[in-house]
């Protein structure tokens, strides 16, 4: 008897506990219809906070500005900021929360490839809308993601072209140095294929991978030095990520390798990273981006003034992912106005083909493959932490989701407009979308 009654008591007790827990979790699903909610999914703590916090501030600034103009479709925009804490599964969890609990209409977020990959299944399942503002390795085109950063053909290949040209030093020998993750791996594979197609021999290409946050570069820099003393002009193409850059450049400078001897062109070093560097020894090294703070354009001056006023610190800088966020935000606003709704499918259709001014004085257009047209700029690092633009492409380069320099990828094509294709990975050989189940 006693057992039975106590089991009953347990059951009663446990159901109360359970109900309380569920209630507290779902309590905040109050849905206000009079605002348009914008999700901001950038890490505010952990290793990526260094880069991502700025983008959170950028989105908040753009929202504030839009609200001053009277909002969107007569409603105010409301930012929903969460912190995925540089933890990749947490990115997926927070995306679910933003879409299901907060019912946001659009998300601006992610920085690393792995965070995007983690978010991808969720955003496709719940049919959300993500603007991804960072240069990346390509090889992707999702219906629910718009890529406003550079694809490899908008950064890596023009940079190598520049170095091979006479003005860039007629480089004949290449060190491809990167952090061991997917962006450098893919970019270097593409570059390797591209260089070989330009007649560079296997032995004139040195590829080196290091772990995240690698801090002891003595051996590698000494190897680069040796590799560079074989009689041909040598350059380093660096896809070294974030934290590892400072010790890398410091070691270069200390071992006496200057930009005149072996220039380093980096794809992940921008104004913001430089603000954490002692730039003295870096002068002359290069970076390839689609935007530099030093770009000479009225719209850029205005953006910089607004940013400095918003953040309240005259020493802060602007950078390429900020421009990508700016373009993405303006495109979304324009598309919502055109579609007269925030419904994802309508906005998606309205987004393709939309053009907004970029910050370098040109125009960015959203292509059917969800990538942008972008100018490519090469900048040289200056003493003051800014880039001096030494070269730029004459016309904007359209972003290529699938590179032509990898055999498997060359077959694929992304088109979200052409009713015959309507997918992110259309195989031009088999004439169908390879595999995807959406």
């Amino acid at each position, binding site marked *: 008897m006693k057992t039975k009654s106590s089991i009953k008591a347990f059951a009663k007790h446990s159901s109360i506990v359970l109900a309380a827990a569920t209630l507290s979790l779902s309590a905040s699903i109050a849905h206000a219809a009079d605002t348009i909610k914008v999700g901001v999914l950038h890490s505010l703590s952990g290793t990526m906070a260094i880069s991502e916090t700025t983008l959170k501030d950028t989105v908040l600034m753009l929202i504030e500005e839009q609200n001053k103009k009277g909002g969107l479709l007569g409603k105010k925009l409301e930012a929903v900021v969460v912190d995925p804490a540089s933890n990749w599964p947490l990115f997926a969890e927070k995306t679910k929360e933003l879409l299901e609990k907060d019912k946001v209409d659009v998300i601006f977020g992610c920085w690393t490839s792995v965070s995007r990959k983690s978010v991808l299944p969720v955003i496709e399942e719940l049919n959300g809308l993500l603007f991804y503002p960072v240069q990346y390795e390509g090889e992707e085109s999702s219906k629910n993601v718009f890529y406003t950063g550079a694809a490899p053909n908008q950064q890596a290949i023009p940079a190598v072209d520049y170095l091979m040209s006479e003005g860039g030093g007629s480089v004949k020998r290449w060190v491809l140095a990167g952090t061991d993750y997917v962006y450098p791996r893919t970019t270097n594979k593409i570059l390797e294929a591209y260089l070989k197609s330009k007649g560079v021999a296997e032995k004139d290409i040195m590829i080196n991978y290091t772990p995240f946050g690698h801090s002891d570069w003595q051996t590698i820099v000494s190897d680069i030095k040796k590799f560079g003393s074989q009689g041909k002009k040598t350059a380093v193409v660096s896809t070294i990520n974030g934290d590892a850059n400072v010790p890398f450049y410091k070691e270069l*400078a200390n071992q006496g390798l200057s930009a005149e001897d072996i220039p380093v062109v980096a794809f992940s070093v921008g104004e913001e990273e430089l603000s954490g560097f002692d730039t003295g020894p870096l002068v002359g090294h290069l970076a390839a981006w689609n935007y530099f703070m030093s770009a000479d354009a009225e719209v850029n*001056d205005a953006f910089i003034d607004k940013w400095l006023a918003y953040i309240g610190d005259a020493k802060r800088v602007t950078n390429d992912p900020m421009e990508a966020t700016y373009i993405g935000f303006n495109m979304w606003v324009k598309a919502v106005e055109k579609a007269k709704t925030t419904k994802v499918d309508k906005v998606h259709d309205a987004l393709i083909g939309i053009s907004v001014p970029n910050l370098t004085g040109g125009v960015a257009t959203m292509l059917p493959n969800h990538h942008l047209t972008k100018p490519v700029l090469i900048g040289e690092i200056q003493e003051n932490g800014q880039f001096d633009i030494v070269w730029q492409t004459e016309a904007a380069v359209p972003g290529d989701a699938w590179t032509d320099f990898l055999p498997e990828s060359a077959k694929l094509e992304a088109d979200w407009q052409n009713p015959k294709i309507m997918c992110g990975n259309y195989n031009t050989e088999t004439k169908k979308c390879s595999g995807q189940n959406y």
Partner: protein
Amino acid sequence: MKLTHIDTHAVFRFILFCLVIILPMQSTAAPIATVGQIKIQREDAALLLNELITAKSTVDKINLINLIANSNLPQRVAVLEALQSGDLYYTKKAKQLVYAHSHADGYSAVAVIGNEDLGVVGSRAVRKISINNELRTVLRGVLAEISLRSENTAERLQAAKNLVRSPAAEFLPAIERALVMESDAKVIEALKLAAAMVNLNSDEQVLRLEAIESFRGSLDSDAMSLLAAMQLTDSDGNYLEPDDLVRESAAAVLKQMRSEAKIYKLIENTFFGLSLGSVLLLTAVGLAITFGVMGVINMAHGEMMMLGAYTTYVIQLLMPNYIDYSIIVAIPAAFMVSGLVGIVIERGIIRHLYGRPLETLLATFGVSLILQQAVRSIFSPLNKSVTAPSWLSGSLEINGALSLTYNRLYIIAFSLIVLLLLVFLLKKTFVGLQMRAVTQNRAMANSMGIRTGWVDALTFGLGSGIAGIAGVALSQLTNVGPNLGQSYIIDSFMVVVFGGVGNLFGTFFAAMSLGVANKFLEPFAGAVLAKIFVLVFIILFIQWRPRGLFALKGRSVED
């Protein structure tokens, strides 16, 4: 590289030739150019210099630089130096060439022609005359030739070395002239090398052979690079160096140079290993106190280093004009800051947890989260730039193949000094005696009249303070940001455990051997695998000696 140089110089000679012919026609009063120097009158000077504003392509600019260098303009050195250092601008409206230095409200500008002070101009009212790496190479050579005539020996040596790195036929007369006048042995050596580098491109076989022979015994990497270039073939399979005799002798000399360089490579590798080891030692030695001696699993140790690095940053902000001395000031400052924070943590948290070592892990982990977020809130999550003082930059050149970087040399010395001071403090002072007494037998020490609480706080403060000092050193090597500590904490624990908990000598030996092992594995296995091998080695080693390399003996180690 070789090809482009020939091309650009050919173009240069052609333009120079044209100029010599055209200039007299333009201004009748101008005297004809003499001995490579072009005399230019005032209005032409303005014209020539202003062309810097309009010249767009790299080739145009190279020609212009050569013209200016070979002119008799009084400003030529100043202009070229400003161009090289990036201080040469022009005003957007008046298209006037100015020297500009950055100023709080923009730039303070001085006109190049006429030296008129234009005061402070807005940062967007002027534009820089941009240069790239090609131009920098040319400028380096041109300016080196000019400064070969300097009174200062160090400047001449630098100039000669720069000429070695930017060899061009135009400089040969200047080099030879300088060789006659020069008395300093080092400068002569560098000049001879420079001359040989130029002669390597000479048309005469004898001169080239002589140049190659003169490299024998030298280990200069640029010379090796040129010799190696002679062995290469072009796209049609023809050697770039058509003369067999020259090529073979170059190959022979190159072989000898390379085999000699190998020995130095070994020395260099050992140096790399020792310097990595000394970084490990610095980061671990503080932990050897808090963890090794006190038994506190201090997860906030990395954050103490971070505080030290941020202290360095703040000190540099406070004394922007004395960057060279800032590090000296930062060392005691970082020791104080981290030490005080350590004492606060000990008094506030850890003292309640003695005898529960594993719980110190949890509490200090919480502290480390709080400290990281505090730094993020105060200084923003961005990395901060800490400038390297001039005496820490550059390298000590032993010879062409071996140069030891100064910052690493200083860090090796610094870590040894810190270790020795610490050993002295613990073994030879009264405070050290008390610290050892308390950690060995708290109750006994207490009953002998030692204020154990006070000693605990002091010991923890000492360990934390040393971590702060390590932070100063790290600020010279890596990022100063909120994550600085996290990247070193695990390595520090490994070093302490490998060396034997509670043994400072063990920590020293462990740090150095792990550093050297890592660096000798790296060339074969790559950076990642080398690290994995070292970790696996530590795991296996602990099986063999479960108490580390130098285990403490005696009763106190029994648990």
